[in-house]
């Protein structure tokens, strides 16, 4: 006997349209599963050099250990709280019912809800404090490097010191790529020349702000040779997103080779070569901001750059060994072609040192990037380089301006810069 005729209208609809409703519910489930799947798969990216879950040094490992404790705990709490909020919102939504009885205070619930978070925070606190003290340790430092941030690149200067038996007799100054020996506790002393920046190489340690007038300490240590990418993580103006950095870890023997090379002055280009003509262009144009150690003027005196007169931060990258690094313009652009870059980045730990120390060979030089930069730098990387809009910086540039070089001058400059290894 059928009861269809006695069912309420809503029930009838359910029966009649039950199939359609089930199909809709199924679609919603599919969509939810797919959305979750997309989010889940996003965590499986292979080429993610700034993944905080893949530590490559002691300090980053300490942070990783801490986040493996805190994240699951916080995740469980977060999911439980959001689920409860969602349930209450849905279950007790306004359906026209009367306002329920309003009560105040429930000591048992309040005490329970105080004790449980306190216990969770106590557990988290113990591991957090342990992590903080581990990261703050500096009394066993083996090497010191001064790191100075400015819009929008990082300068590294290595004070005179002895590192693992390698003597840095004269300070080394470089930019973009920080070179460190492996398995060495390196202390970075960070500051800034203009605004607040933040130094972050996720594979080696957490973030640390570089603040004008202050020196903040950050220690790095890399287990294996390789390049570890990072970026500025404190908004610092127009090209903040293009303020990158890379730490290059070399075996101690390779590091000694690198130090020896960095302490040499730039070689003079061959007589009557295109590079020598490029040196002339450099002395006319680039020396206003960029220093090349050992470069001499026509009268034989040392050519000294004057970035303090032209750039707001008072500094520009030292180019003495430009071709010993793989990147330029705040590590934002490759100085090597993509094939050569891939060879260096994917080199085995045993082969990495030799591959990196080879520097930028003529075959590997990314002429496209370098020429574009010389042709019109602000077009590649946004900078405050319009001479008519520099009132707020006393007429000084923030970044590199367009020098309006001729193609002939660019050819000469590329030839000259290629000699700076």
């Amino acid at each position, binding site marked *: 006997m059928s009861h269809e005729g006695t069912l309420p209208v809503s029930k009838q609809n359910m029966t009649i349209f039950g199939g359609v409703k089930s199909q809709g519910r199924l679609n919603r489930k599919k969509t939810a599963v797919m959305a979750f799947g997309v989010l889940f798969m996003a965590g499986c990216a292979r080429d993610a050099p700034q993944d905080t879950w893949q530590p490559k040094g002691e300090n980053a490992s300490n942070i990783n250990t801490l986040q493996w404790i805190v994240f699951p705990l916080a995740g469980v709490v977060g999911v439980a709280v959001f689920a409860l909020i969602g349930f209450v919102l*849905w279950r007790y939504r306004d359906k026209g019912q009367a306002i329920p009885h309003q009560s105040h205070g429930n000591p048992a619930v309040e005490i329970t809800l105080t004790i449980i978070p306190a216990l969770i925070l106590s557990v988290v606190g113990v591991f957090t404090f342990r992590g903080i003290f581990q990261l703050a340790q500096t009394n066993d*430092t083996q090497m*010191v490097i001064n790191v100075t941030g400015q819009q929008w690149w990082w300068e590294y200067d290595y*004070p*005179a*010191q002895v590192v693992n038996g390698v003597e840095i007799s004269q300070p080394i100054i470089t930019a973009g790529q920080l070179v460190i020996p492996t398995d060495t506790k390196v202390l970075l002393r960070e500051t800034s*020349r203009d605004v607040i920046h933040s130094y972050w190489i996720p594979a080696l340690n957490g973030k640390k702000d570089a603040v004008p007038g202050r*020196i903040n300490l950050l220690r790095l240590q890399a287990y294996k040779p390789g390049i570890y990418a990072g970026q500025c993580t404190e908004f610092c103006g127009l090209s903040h997103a293009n303020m990158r950095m890379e730490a290059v870890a070399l075996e101690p023997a390779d590091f000694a080779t690198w130090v020896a090379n960095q302490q040499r002055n730039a070689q003079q280009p061959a007589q009557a070569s295109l590079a020598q003509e490029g040196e002339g262009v450099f002395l006319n144009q680039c020396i206003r901001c960029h220093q090349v150690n050992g470069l001499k003027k026509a009268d034989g005196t040392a050519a*000294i750059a004057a970035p303090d007169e032209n750039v707001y931060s*008072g500094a520009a990258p030292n180019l003495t060994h430009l071709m010993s690094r793989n990147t330029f313009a705040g590590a934002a652009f490759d100085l090597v072609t993509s094939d050569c870059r891939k060879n260096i980045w994917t080199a085995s730990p045993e082969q990495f040192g030799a591959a990196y120390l080879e520097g930028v060979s003529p075959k590997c030089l990314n002429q496209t990037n370098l020429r574009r930069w010389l042709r019109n730098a602000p077009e590649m990387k946004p900078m405050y380089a319009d001479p008519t809009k520099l009132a707020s910086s006393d007429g000084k540039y923030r970044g590199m301006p367009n020098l309006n070089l001729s193609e002939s001058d660019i050819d000469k400059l590329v030839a000259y810069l290629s000699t700076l290894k």
Partner: protein
Amino acid sequence: MITTGSKYCFGIAGLGSLGALIYMILINPSDVGVLALLGIAIAMSIVGGVTQFTGDFDADTVSDAITVSASAPANSMWPLLLALGGVLLLVGMTTNPIIFLLGIVVIVAAGIEWALQSWAERASEDSAFNRFVRERALTSLELPLLAGGAVAVIAIAFSRIMLAVSPENGAIIFIVVATAVLAVGFLIAVKTNLKKTSITAVCVLGAVALLVSGGIAGQSGNREQLVSAAAEEHYSHKDCEETASKYFDKNSEKTVSMKSGILATIRVKDGKLSAQLIGLDAPVATVTVARSNQATILFRNLDDEEHRLVANLGVKKVGETGVVEKIVDCTQMTGKNQTQALLLKINKPSASSGPYTFTVPGLEGQEIALVVP
């Protein structure tokens, strides 16, 4: 039915969408501003949807649970002052930063006062009780702020007077004023039957006299002695010799409170000069200072004799005369177990006119190399 709260959220979402559309047409379709406005629209749509679904912030429902005072709000000057603050803010934006800041202060003060007054008026139907509630909440805020302002005005006015008159006259004025204040205070304490109006009159007279005198003194400027000292750079000129200087070493600093920004520490102990970098235990013979950036060097004297640290920063030519002048910077004379900071900003590398060194006058033959790459 769309609830009141949802209407509000949907309204903002609509305005955000409209604003984004206008922005795209009139300014730049790919600007961050469009994203911001669309972000607001989307966020408010979501909040509005949730509010509508849950029936939250429905005025009809909420009103059932709230007892609102039936009494009408009292007259208030705070809306007027709030509007004045807005005017000052706008005028200050285009004219003077001080007016802008004054506008912010007026807006904050008037806003707090108005909000608390409104809140107090809803406390009960008894206006006297409501006034009591308001005063109880605000007096603890108003009195310290007013007292702080009064102290600041007195300090500024008095300092202008003391800077304008000679040190001798300043001492006399100080004694006379202090005696007068003491006498009046004593009189008020002893004569308990003094009329309140008399005390108020004396206080007002004193305040007016102080303000007028301070204003006149501020207009007339500092006394001649201070003006000439500033012109002769008594305050900025550094005497970096072995012996103490009359001006530069007067009231020398004895404490340093900027340890977090220190690049290196240079010490004198048993007549020996040494330097240390943060993070390195071993002493160093060279200190590297980044070019064109402020660097703080700490000088610690552990000897019995007074010493100063001198940074020798090469030479410079004086104008077109061909005369070559040494560039030096130094700390004040530093006593036993005392520490001073030397702040350096060096724009030229040591290769330009170096070598640069740190020395201590009196300790001949000893130096720390200072390298500016």
